């Protein structure tokens, strides 16, 4: 199986021994050994996946990298975080996903209003199976555990990914004061309940809700 490791915090090195890995198109910065790069149309879930991704806006340009040696990936000097999956599901924005083990299945799910409030659309990408995935963040991600006794509330702009059995719920407190410019600046929040891990970045994307 491909072995993912970090070279510093902003470069992902993947050791390949004849197997393959899926990565964001154009994210390869260097390689050592023999590699072939094959563009996968539509994110690599066949025709149905391709259509779904087009419709939902969660399309990613993905390539399949196969070969012997070490391949290095990086994207705009963003921080890279490794996530090891053992059967569970990782929910991540397509724009934050750098590479996944070839054995992992990717898909698209509906997120509801949370997506809209983050400016990321109504859908998110899921990664499922056993293997490793590399997730990008602006600044090193902080992993926060959610349990039944300790629900977590996150700013939509700082959220990047989560795993586990989590229910998410958009909280908002938009009142007439928001309209006259006296909002609290934290009007939109996502509350996570259940059991799982949430990845947040120390930075906020500009969101529609962000200024409220």
């Amino acid at each position: 199986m491909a072995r993912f490791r970090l070279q510093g915090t902003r470069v992902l090195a993947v050791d390949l021994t004849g197997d393959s890995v899926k990565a964001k198109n154009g994210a390869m910065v260097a390689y050592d050994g023999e590699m072939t790069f094959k563009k996968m149309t539509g994110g690599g879930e066949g025709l149905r996946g391709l259509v779904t991704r087009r419709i939902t806006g969660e399309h990613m340009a993905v390539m399949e990298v196969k070969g012997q040696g070490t391949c290095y990936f990086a994207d705009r000097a963003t921080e890279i975080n490794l996530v090891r999956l053992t059967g569970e599901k990782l929910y991540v924005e397509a724009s934050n996903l750098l590479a996944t083990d070839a054995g992992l299945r990717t898909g698209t799910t509906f997120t509801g209003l949370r997506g809209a409030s983050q400016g990321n659309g109504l859908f998110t990408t899921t990664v499922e199976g056993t293997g490793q995935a590399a997730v990008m963040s602006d600044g090193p991600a902080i992993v926060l555990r959610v349990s039944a006794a300790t629900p977590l509330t996150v700013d939509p702009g700082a959220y990047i990914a989560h795993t586990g059995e989590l229910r998410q719920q958009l909280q908002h407190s938009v009142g007439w004061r928001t309209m006259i410019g006296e909002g609290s600046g934290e009007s939109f929040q996502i509350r996570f309940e259940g059991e799982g891990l949430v990845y947040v970045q120390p930075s906020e994307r500009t969101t529609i809700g962000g200024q409220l």
Partner: protein
Amino acid sequence: MSGGPVVGGFGAAGGDGGPVVYDPYTLPADDNVNPYAFSVALDGQWFLQKGKMIAYYGQVDFHAIGYGPLDRLVAANFHSPLHAADWVVAQGRGKMLLADRSYDINSYDLDDGNLTIRSGNLLAFQPGLALKQSIIPGFLTLIGTGKFVAASNGAVHFVEPPIRVDPQALVGWADCPSPCHHYDHAYLRGVLGGIRAMTGIGGASGEEHQFEFVGAGQVLLQSTETLMAEQATGGVPGQAGPGVPGAGAQGPGAGPRFGR
């Protein structure tokens, strides 16, 4: 978690060489999680700049300044009238994470002291401190005892006066040195110098102008000359009148306003 309820013990996180996993009990109390994020152990109130909270555990409410149940607290600690729209009060109990565009975050303790800081760099402060607008436009002064959190582009360095610093590298200063402008006039003397000064031809080094500090205290510098986005400090109210720096020159309805 200081003073908070502790229910059951979680495993301390981490494990199998993966990333460190934090929960409310393992998050640091009033300390940095990493160089770019700060964890506040909230038990009461903190003042925050809008939009700098990235996540929290526990029960926390965010109140805009200018109305609501915290009027008295705001009156005692917040003296920057036109700045109020950029700040909120977080009230409640729990752990709260603060971050700002993945800049370096540092916390500072003031003990019956004062510190003046560029307005865009200040993220949050404890109610033990009072926030006031500095006489120098674009800067805020914190007075009192307590902790505050500030962001900088690159790590912050503390230096002692006398020192001259580049305007863009200045983050703030503590304990009253005398901030003033310094120009290298020697460079601009004579006819050639005059042409240089007016046209820039002949090479200005870009370092002819500095801020000068003398006296006892500390000056805070960041390690780049890239400024953080300027946060409106709100001008001085227009009716402040002549003699007040910045009066009538900033804020809505710019332009001098005399005799109001």
